[in-house]
């Protein structure tokens, strides 16, 4: 109990989800044996320690195995990954390095086979589908390589959809959606459908949609993958701008070297593990030689 109090003190940012989660481990972890209790205490201690840091995303020893017929593909081999609040992080690595897999894990879109993933210090594995949906709705904004807009709905309706899930008043949602679309430079295309827009414009709608519920994190999976280099740069800069003005953490899986010029930190992923981190300053020289523009 004392541990719990301590936890509360050090985490003024705790929200409803986090508060609920405290009760969850009681159901999941048997508290029969003594060593189980000490284990729990150890974990609680570690967690309290980690809470002092400002990690908004934390992956701990994450493993993911895909089964393809008889073959097992070990996509993630114990990844440890931390992202600070307000950071712009690029996840880079060759195809098949587990980049997208890790990305899906930290987005709560897929569950790891082993290890734990925390978003805003909430263990994703401990959440019910209900709470997970709440988390996706309020804490995370997603941007996909293929845009994934609802094809039959207008830009406005697309941006309003997450707000509808959050039960925002219709008129309020509409005002906010228009404002967001204006912010991403689509103020005059509010009633256009995805098919009537270019790829770059569709991705802008997706950015506006990701921001609809004022998330703490924006996750972008290869946001420039389907765009030409000029449009791609615009999207990257838009993300940077949002990151600065709104204080939103941006995590982006990418192999677009243009991303390097704007992000704070790069995590290099090779063969299912994080090979190294690099800050932007260290990469300045390399970027100049690879961008080729």
């Amino acid at each position: 109990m004392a541990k719990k109090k301590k936890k509360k003190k050090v985490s003024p940012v705790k929200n409803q989800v986090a508060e609920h989660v405290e009760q969850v481990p009681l159901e999941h972890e048997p508290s029969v044996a003594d060593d189980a209790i000490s284990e729990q205490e150890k974990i609680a201690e570690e967690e309290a320690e980690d809470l002092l840091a400002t990690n908004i995303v934390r992956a701990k020893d994450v493993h993911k195995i895909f089964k393809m017929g008889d073959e097992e593909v070990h996509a993630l081999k114990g990844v440890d990954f931390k992202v600070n609040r307000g950071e712009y992080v690029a996840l880079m690595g060759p195809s098949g390095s587990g980049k997208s897999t890790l990305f899906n894990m930290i987005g709560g879109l897929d569950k790891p086979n082993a290890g734990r993933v925390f978003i805003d210090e909430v263990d994703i594995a401990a959440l019910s589908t209900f709470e997970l949906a709440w988390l996706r709705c309020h804490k995370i904004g997603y941007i996909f390589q293929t845009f994934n807009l609802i094809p039959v709905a207008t830009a406005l309706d697309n941006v309003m959809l997450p707000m509808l899930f959050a039960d925002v008043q219709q008129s309020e949602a509409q005002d906010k959606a228009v404002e967001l679309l204006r912010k991403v430079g689509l103020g005059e295309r509010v009633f256009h459908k995805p098919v009537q827009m270019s790829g770059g414009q569709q991705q802008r709608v997706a950015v506006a949609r990701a921001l609809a519920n004022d998330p703490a994190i924006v996750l972008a999976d290869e946001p420039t993958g389907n765009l030409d280099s000029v449009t791609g740069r615009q999207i990257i800069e838009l993300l940077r701008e949002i990151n600065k003005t709104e204080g939103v953490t941006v995590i982006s899986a990418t192999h677009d070297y243009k991303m390097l010029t704007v992000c704070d930190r790069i995590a290099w992923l090779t063969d299912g593990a994080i090979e190294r981190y690099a800050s932007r300053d260290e990469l300045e020289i390399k970027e100049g030689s690879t961008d080729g523009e």
Partner: protein
Amino acid sequence: MREMEQIIILPYRKVLQIAWQGMRIRLLKTFLVTSCIALALAFLTFIMCSNGMVEQLGERASEQLQQRLAREGLLEQLLSTEQRSQTAWMLGIALMISFAGIVNAMLISVTERFREIGTMKCLGGLDSFIVKLYLAESLFQGTVGTTIGIVVGVVLAYVEGLNRFGSEAFQLLPIVTLVQILVISFVAGVVLTVLGALYPAWSAAKMEPVDAMRSEV
């Protein structure tokens, strides 16, 4: 926790609103699916009604009509065992067409939207929301399609009856049998439509969002 529940569970009114909007936007597709259901049901109801009429010829038709039909050799033909087995076949085929047609139409119209379901889950849509959405949509399409189909089927059956048996066609089918046929067709149409839509929608809603978005159908 209570507050959270209030935030996330959408009232049915809203689900209906979204479902309605979706169908209106996809007008052509909604129309196609609905008419497919209507067609299948029209066939089923038509077969059941005209079978019902023929079965009652011996009991309910007037002597004049029976004599006329006998003179033309129609009565014997209609009541022969050969004809009866044929009508049983027809009924079986009608049932199969309704089943395959409706379930197939619903399966396709839902599975082609798997990516959309995955996206909705990413944006915070609950599994139950997705199921409710497709329930509302399929209930609407099922009800409208089945109703149109039944009306068309019954009208066609009476037109054929008038053609064969004259104005007595209206007396041939007892009201109880007619109501029975209507109820059976209606229930069959709506249930098949809803099941055809709910099964894929439910399985997609249960998937992890990435899997739903990745699945190519």
